[in-house]
């Protein structure tokens, strides 16, 4: 590197925070070493734990909602409780799970490693972000206990102003979570800008980092508007300031403008990280340089910017002016371009690649399949004339579940399986992971494909009861949700089982050329023994040395591990 005259570089053998080369999990012990940690890897793991609990809670409410809809009329709960269930499902899944899932858990862990940094730029801010998240969770839980909320996760006025539930505490929780999200985004932006290791130029940034960068841009630019929206909603409830109340000269649709100016970018905060993971998975398990690196990287940024221009398509029938509906409909079509760029580049990467059907790759492929469906039905909904009929039907529900769950959650699971060895130092059982995948895939499609059919036939969303002709579809959907749950539990069990029964993971179990696999497993406290000097791109399989691509199974003394190699990675 150029600045070799600065002795500080690489000189962290006796680091301030302990031995930089000790594995991060065991460098310090005791519960307090986790509570006070500023290490991005530990914070990432703690985030992972929290979002997993949130996912479990949100999933439980989803199962309850589906169970209630199994038959017409009252099945398990009354209509009021049902309203609360779907609100909590939505709010928990959106604010507590999907938004922080990939960036805060996997991003925190891997973004600094992937650019060869020792930590994020502001480690203490990172810790603050995590504790703000925890405070947000506590406030949200408190408001669930203290009266719950039945407005849906969107908190639309005027209902959210009038309803007697704990909207204030709920929105305050979301407000705090927003700050957590902003701090994570801010940290990532600065980290990518200032802490790249020598040789990690912008054109060599892993696509996961590009995706995180785009996500961080949106978090930083959109979330403040959510904060002010919720502040105004609070003022509206406390003082009746009337900014959203037509009786006092305000405008209820204005709330939707405010809300969706944040929440549409937030939708991309949810999906872009999924795409980012997918780029990594596709490249690794095709053993090929990603096709159109620059286009894929720029499409993430493109999505980030377009995300700010299309929020009106959530409000086509809300009473917006006709001109605005047309404008937003036209702009929405643009979103297909960067999404399409990604899809085609992934498929082009697969072409003539040496594809390895490891469990993460199964999720990556299902991402492509499910996101195609989710994305294309998004075009139907973005088309003004069609949307007028499909608004607030199960078609919309199915659409965004195909994107959020079929896209982000699939990628998240794929990413977890992919990076689990690096994070924990233990290999999971591939067979169990694949069985889990099959259940997830079948269950997911059964659950939501039937909702597409119902929606196109006019079943409105959020309804407690329905007409007899929808019963078979609702039943199929509910049964699908059970299969999905079985699949998710299997996958979760596989990951947890690896912690105590899994074999020791080598440095690079998947044989990837990515930068994060260059460091040892488990990751040292300072991420790398020496600040790495990068001389090739993260997908340059043709430039990577055999040592870099070596899985490292032979370095591990355990005998059974060798058998595992052929099983897991050596299909080619």
């Amino acid at each position, binding site marked *: 590197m150029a600045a070799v005259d600065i002795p500080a570089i690489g000189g962290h053998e006796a680091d301030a925070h302990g031995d930089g080369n000790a594995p991060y999990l065991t460098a310090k012990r005791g519960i307090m070493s986790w509570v006070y940690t500023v290490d991005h890897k530990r914070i990432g793991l703690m985030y992972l734990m929290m979002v997993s609990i949130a996912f479990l809670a949100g999933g439980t409410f989803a199962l309850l909602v589906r169970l209630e809809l199994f038959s017409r009329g009252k099945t398990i709960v009354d209509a009021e409780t049902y309203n609360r269930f779907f609100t909590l499902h939505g709010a928990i899944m959106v604010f507590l799970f999907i938004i922080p899932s990939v960036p805060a858990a996997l991003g925190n862990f891997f973004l600094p490693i992937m650019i060869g940094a020792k930590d994020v730029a502001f480690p203490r801010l990172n810790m603050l972000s995590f504790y703000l998240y925890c405070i947000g969770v506590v406030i949200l839980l408190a408001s669930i206990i203290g009266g719950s909320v039945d407005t849906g996760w969107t908190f639309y006025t005027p209902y959210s102003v009038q309803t007697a539930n704990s909207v204030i505490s709920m929105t305050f929780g979301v407000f705090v979570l927003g700050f957590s999200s902003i701090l994570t985004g801010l940290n990532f932006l600065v980290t990518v800008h200032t802490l790249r290791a020598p040789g990690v130029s912008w054109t060599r940034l892993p696509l996961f980092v590009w995706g995180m960068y785009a996500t961080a841009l949106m978090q930083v630019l959109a979330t403040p508007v959510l904060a002010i929206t919720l502040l105004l909603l609070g003022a509206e409830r406390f003082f009746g300031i009337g900014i959203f109340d037509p*009786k006092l*000269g305000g405008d209820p649709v204005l709330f939707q403008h405010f809300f969706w100016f944040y929440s549409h970018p937030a939708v991309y905060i949810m999906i872009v990280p999924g795409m980012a993971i997918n780029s990594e998975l596709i490249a690794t398990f095709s053993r090929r340089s990603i096709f159109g690196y620059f286009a894929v990287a720029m499409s993430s940024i493109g999505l980030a910017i377009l995300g700010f221009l299309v929020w009106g398509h959530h409000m086509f029938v809300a009473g917006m*002016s*006709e001109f605005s509906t047309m404008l937003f409909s036209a702009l929405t079509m643009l979103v297909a371009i960067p999404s399409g760029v990604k899809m085609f580049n992934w498929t082009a990467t697969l072409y003539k690649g040496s594809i390895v059907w490891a469990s993460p790759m199964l999720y990556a492929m299902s991402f492509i399949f499910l996101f195609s469906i989710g994305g294309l039905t998004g075009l139907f909904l973005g088309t003004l004339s069609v949307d007028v009929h499909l608004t607030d039907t199960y078609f919309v529900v199915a659409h965004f579940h195909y994107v959020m769950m079929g896209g982000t959650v699939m990628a998240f699971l794929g990413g977890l399986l992919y990076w689990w060895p690096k994070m924990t130092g233990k290999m999971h059982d591939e067979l169990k992971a694949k069985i889990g995948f099959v259940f997830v895939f079948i269950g997911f499609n059964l659950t939501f494909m039937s909702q597409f059919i119902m929606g196109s036939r006019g079943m409105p969303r959020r309804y407690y009861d329905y007409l007899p002709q929808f019963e078979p579809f609702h039943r199929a959907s509910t049964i699908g949700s059970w299969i999905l749950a079985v699949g998710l539990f299997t996958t979760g069990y596989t990951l947890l089982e690896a912690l105590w029964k899994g074999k020791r993971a080598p440095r690079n179990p998947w044989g990837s050329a990515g930068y994060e696999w260059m460091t040892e497993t488990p990751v040292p406290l300072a991420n790398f023994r020496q600040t790495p000097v990068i001389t090739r791109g993260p997908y340059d399989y043709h430039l990577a040395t055999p040592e870099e691509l070596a899985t490292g199974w032979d370095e591990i003394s355990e005998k059974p591990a060798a058998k595992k190699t052929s099983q897991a990675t050596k299909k080619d």
Partner: protein
Amino acid sequence: MATESHQPPSASAVDAHTGHDTGHDAGHDHGDDDGAVHVHIASTQFYVGIFVALVCLTIMTVKVSYYDFGPANVIVALLIATTKAGLVATFFMHLRHDKLFNTLTFLAAFLFLAIFIVFTYDDLGRRGQIDNDYGGTIDPKTGLAAPGGLPATTATINDVEGEPPAGPATTPAGGEKKE
């Protein structure tokens, strides 16, 4: 308090007048220099000069407010305010000698804010433009524009569009209070 002067990481830790940008944006930012912080330091007189300019602009914007330019009132006020903000950002906040990306960050905030305000304002400005009955800005009874939606049902509020009541007499009985 440490008494001995610590050896700074480089001989000239602060470059008092060069104001050159510290490195390019690729890789670690110390590619071509000594790793120390280099900043541009302007003179006190210069800062005071900027302050005087800002005060002059403040006086100007107050004076101007006593003249009515009609719809241009806002534009005039915003132009002056933006000039002031520009002075503060450029010199007090050192953007002039800072990294370009910091300026871009700052301007990006305004860009996205502009997107937000323009699209939202555009929507509210065009309600009912194509179809009068759509968007709920026209009161079907009176044919008058009802800002932000249909007027409420109470009689007093309907009066907003017309003459304000002359006094307590026009309000329903028993409701008046004088302090």
